[in-house]
């Protein structure tokens, strides 16, 4: 595979939004499919070491979603929201962590076709306030999630070698 695609996070101090961008070595149709096919979605979204339960998944305008991350200790972390415009070019949805009810972000993802069958994803998350944005990311659960992801990466690396 070519050099690893780098991720860029843009979170300006004092603002209530942030951007995440990254390119992928796959055509846009497939990137879209990985976001709208429940089996594929569950494969990459959940943190490692956690059980990912995709309870509801209706990736169409007006559809709902709810998923739960279960850690080995039996703790459950629920997330839910609503889908809005869903097309190859852009996917819009609300996002709410159930441990922090009433604090909802609006996530707009654009999928941009690049030459050589590549795709650029840009996620724009708008929070209700600056402290919502900062608080969401600072909270310990996210830290636990990223530790989980690292372990899954290792598993992937082993199965690929």
């Amino acid at each position: 595979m070519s050099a690893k695609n780098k991720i860029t996070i843009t979170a300006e101090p004092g603002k209530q939004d942030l951007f995440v961008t990254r390119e992928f070595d796959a055509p846009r149709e497939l990137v879209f499919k990985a976001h709208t096919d429940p089996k594929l979605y569950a494969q990459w979204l959940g943190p490692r070491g956690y059980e990912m339960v995709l309870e509801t998944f209706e990736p169409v305008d007006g559809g709902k979603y709810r998923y739960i991350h279960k850690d080995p200790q039996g703790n459950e972390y629920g997330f839910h929201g609503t889908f809005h415009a869903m097309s190859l070019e852009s996917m819009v949805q609300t996002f709410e962590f159930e441990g922090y009810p009433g604090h909802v972000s609006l996530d707009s993802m654009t999928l941009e076709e690049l030459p050589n069958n590549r795709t650029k994803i840009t996620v724009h998350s708008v929070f209700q306030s600056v402290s919502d944005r900062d608080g969401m990311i600072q909270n310990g659960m996210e830290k636990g999630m990223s530790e989980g992801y690292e372990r899954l990466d290792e598993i992937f690396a082993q199965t690929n070698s």
Partner: protein
Amino acid sequence: MVTYMTNIRRDVFQAIADPNRRAILSLLANQRLTLNGVADNFRISRPAVSRHIKILKECGLVVVIPQGRERYCEVRFDRLAEVTDWVEQYRQMWEQRFDRLDQVLLELQKKEQQNVRKK
């Protein structure tokens, strides 16, 4: 988890939310200055500079050290690490998530190629 919502924010994020405070920090990064020394570099009023220094002090980013008759402002940059940690944590979460998406896409493309060959 919710308490910080109701308190007046006095953390690093509050400190760097204001462009004047960011400018004060970069000014003080290279030199320690008195309050007047800082104010001389800004168009905003001296009381306004003083207010910003006060907030920076409360956020733990600036300390004021008396020396003789003067009081010098110094930056404490270790607190700024909280900001990089915060973004770093989030970056890692997305990086790992997208690394896994890479794998899913790779598998999909392999399958598609196999299907083409079968046909």
